[in-house]
C-alpha cells in the first residue's frame, strides 16, 4: 500500500445522499453523489426508510460512475473508507454493508469513519483552504462549525486523525431540520433552507423577536464557570414560537408577513449559531474556523459568520458547496489522513453506530 500518498475510495450513506469519492492523499479525483432528496419532497423531510431503499439501488451505479470518472480500477485503490456514523441507522447499514463487501472482495483495508470528522477532513481537498495552511495539513488551532439537516456541532480539531473534541451540539433539532419545519409552517417548499434564505432577503430580520435557545445565564454560565449548555443549541422552542406567531396572525384574520417571519426566524437561528461558535473559538484558543454541512450554503450564515469571525480575529474557511454537503470525497479525505498517520484499519465485524461520538474518529 502507498502509505505516503494513498488512493482511497470513500463511501457515504448516513442520510439521503449516496456518495462515492476517490481521493489520492489530499488530491480530489472524483466526488460522485446520488441524492434521494426529490423522493422526500412530498413528505417535507427525509424519510429514513425511503432513503435506505434509495441507497441500496444507487450504490453500485454510483460506485461504477465514480471509478469511471476517476479512471481508476478497484484494484488500484489502497484502502476503502466508509461512514459508520453518526447518521440514520438503516441508511448507514447500506453503505457499511457495501463497503465491507468491497473490502472483502478486494482484500483491501477498510476504515469505519466518523461522518462529522469527515466534514472537517474535506477541507484538505479545497484549494482555498490548502492555501491558508501548510501544504497537506489543516490549519493549527482549528475549530469547525457543522450545520446541516442532520447535525449542528462545534468541534475542536487538534489532530484530524487522532484528536477531535465536541465542544457543543444541538440538544434537540438540527438547525437544517428547524429550517425545514418552519418552511412547512410558512407553506414553503422542501428543503426549507434555500427557500427561507431566499424569502428572508425580502423581509425584516428585526420584525419579530424570536427566542434564542440556551442563551440565558443559567445555561451559559461564564468562561470560568461554564453553564451546562454554554456552546450547545436548541431549536425546538424557536420552532414552537414561530408556529404560535403564525397562528396568532391567522387567528386575528391578518395576513402572515411570511418574509418577515422567515427573516426573523433565520436570524434567531444564525445569531445563536455564530455567536456561540465565535465564543467557543475565543475561549478555546481556536484561530481558524471551518464551516461545513449543507446549511453552509445559507447566504446569511456566511455573512454573519464572516462578520463575527472577522471582528474576533478568527479566520473563517468555507469549502466549496459540493464539499460541504454530504459526500463520499470527505470520507475518502479522512480515510487518507488515517492511512497517512498509520492508524490501524477497522475489523470487518464493526457495527455502524447511528450516534457515533466525535471523539471516535474511526472504529
Amino acid at each position, binding site marked *: 500500500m502507498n502509505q505516503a500518498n494513498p488512493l482511497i475510495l470513500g463511501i457515504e450513506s448516513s442520510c439521503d445522499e449516496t456518495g462515492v469519492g476517490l481521493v489520492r492523499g489530499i488530491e480530489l479525483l472524483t466526488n460522485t453523489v446520488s441524492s434521494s432528496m426529490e423522493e422526500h419532497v412530498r413528505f417535507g423531510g427525509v424519510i429514513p426508510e425511503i432513503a435506505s431503499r434509495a441507497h*441500496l439501488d444507487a450504490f453500485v451505479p454510483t460506485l461504477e460512475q465514480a471509478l469511471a470518472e476517476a479512471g481508476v480500477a478497484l484494484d488500484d485503490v489502497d484502502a476503502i473508507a466508509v461512514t459508520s456514523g453518526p447518521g440514520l441507522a438503516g441508511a448507514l447499514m*447500506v453503505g457499511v454493508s457495501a463497503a465491507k463487501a468491497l473490502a472483502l472482495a478486494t482484500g483491501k483495508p477498510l476504515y469505519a469513519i466518523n461522518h462529522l470528522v469527515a466534514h472537517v477532513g474535506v477541507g484538505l481537498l479545497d484549494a482555498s483552504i490548502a492555501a491558508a495552511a501548510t501544504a497537506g495539513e489543516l490549519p493549527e488551532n482549528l475549530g469547525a462549525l457543522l450545520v446541516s439537516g442532520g447535525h449542528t456541532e462545534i468541534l475542536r480539531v487538534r489532530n484530524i486523525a487522532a484528536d477531535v473534541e465536541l465542544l457543543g451540539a444541538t440538544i434537540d433539532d438540527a438547525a437544517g431540520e428547524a429550517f425545514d419545519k418552519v418552511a412547512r409552517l410558512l407553506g414553503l417548499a422542501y428543503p426549507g433552507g434555500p427557500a427561507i434564505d431566499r424569502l428572508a432577503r425580502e423581509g425584516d430580520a428585526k420584525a419579530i423577536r424570536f427566542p434564542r435557545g440556551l442563551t440565558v445565564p443559567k445555561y451559559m454560565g461564564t468562561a470560568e464557570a461554564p453553564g451546562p449548555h454554554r456552546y450547545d443549541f436548541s431549536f425546538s422552542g424557536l420552532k414552537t414560537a414561530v408556529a404560535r406567531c403564525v397562528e396568532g396572525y391567522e387567528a386575528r384574520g391578518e395576513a402572515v408577513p411570511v418574509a418577515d417571519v422567515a427573516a426573523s426566524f433565520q436570524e434567531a437561528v444564525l445569531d445563536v449559531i455564530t455567536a456561540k461558535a465565535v465564543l467557543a473559538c475565543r475561549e478555546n484558543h481556536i484561530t481558524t474556523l471551518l464551516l461545513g454541512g449543507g446549511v453552509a450554503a445559507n447566504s446569511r450564515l456566511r455573512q454573519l459568520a464572516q462578520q463575527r469571525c472577522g471582528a474576533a480575529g478568527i479566520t473563517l474557511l468555507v469549502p466549496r458547496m459540493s464539499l460541504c454537503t454530504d459526500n463520499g470525497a470527505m470520507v475518502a479525505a479522512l480515510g487518507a489522513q488515517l492511512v497517512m498517520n498509520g492508524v490501524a484499519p477497522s475489523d470487518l465485524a464493526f457495527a455502524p453506530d447511528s450516534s457515533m461520538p466525535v471523539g471516535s474518529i474511526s472504529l
Partner: protein
Amino acid sequence: MRILTIDTSAVASAALLSFDAADPAAPARVEAEFATADTRSHAEVLAPGVRSLFSDPAAQGPELDAIVVGVGPGPFTGLRSGIAMARTLAFAWKVPLHGLMSLEALAWDVLSLREAGQALPEGGDFVVATDARRREVYWARYSETGGLLKGPVVGPADTIRDVPVHGAGAGLYAAGLRANGCTVDDAAAGLQPTAVSLGHMAARKIQQGLELPGTAPLYLRESDAKVPGPRKRALL
C-alpha cells in the same frame, strides 16, 4: 457450477455450493456454510461470515459462476445488508448475480423433511411462514412438488386456514393456526430461511434450466412515511 448464496431475510447466512448444472438429478454439494442464530446482527457478522467461506476471497471470488441472494420478504434493514453485500461482491468480482425469494429456502427444507419422513403431513399443499414482526407473518403456499402457488404475502397468521404451516412464522402463531384447522409440526416450526437451503433451491432451478429473477428486494410493505396533511392548529 459453483455459487455463493447469501440470505439475510431472517438470520444472516451465506454458503458455497457446487453442482452439476446439466444434471437435474445430481444433488448440490455444500462446500462451506455460515449462519447466525439471531436475526439482528447482520451488519456485524455477515461480512466476516462470507469471508470465512473462502481461504482467499480476492482470488476465489472472481472464479464463482454466480452469486444468488435471498431478496426477502424480511425485515428491511437486515434484508438490505445481504442484498447490498451480494450486489457489491458481484460488481467487484464481475460475477453474474441473481435473486431468489427467501421463502423458497423454507420450501426446500419442508420438501427435504417430508422426503426423510420427518415433517408431517407428508403430502399435499403446504405453507411456509416467517416472522414479519408487527403481529404479522410473511408467507407463501406451495404445491406438494414445491411449486409456488401463492405469495409471498404479508399479513396476520389467522388469514391462513386448513393447511400445514411450517417455519418460524408457524411456531410463533401455532395455537391460532391450529385453531384455524392448520397443522403445525413442531419439527419444522422454528425453521428460518438459510443460504444453504436457498442454494439448494437455486441449484435445482438452474439444473431445470429456469431463469432466476433479479435482486429487487421484496419489501411487500410501503415505507411508513405519510404525506403530511394540513397543519394542525394545536399549539394555541
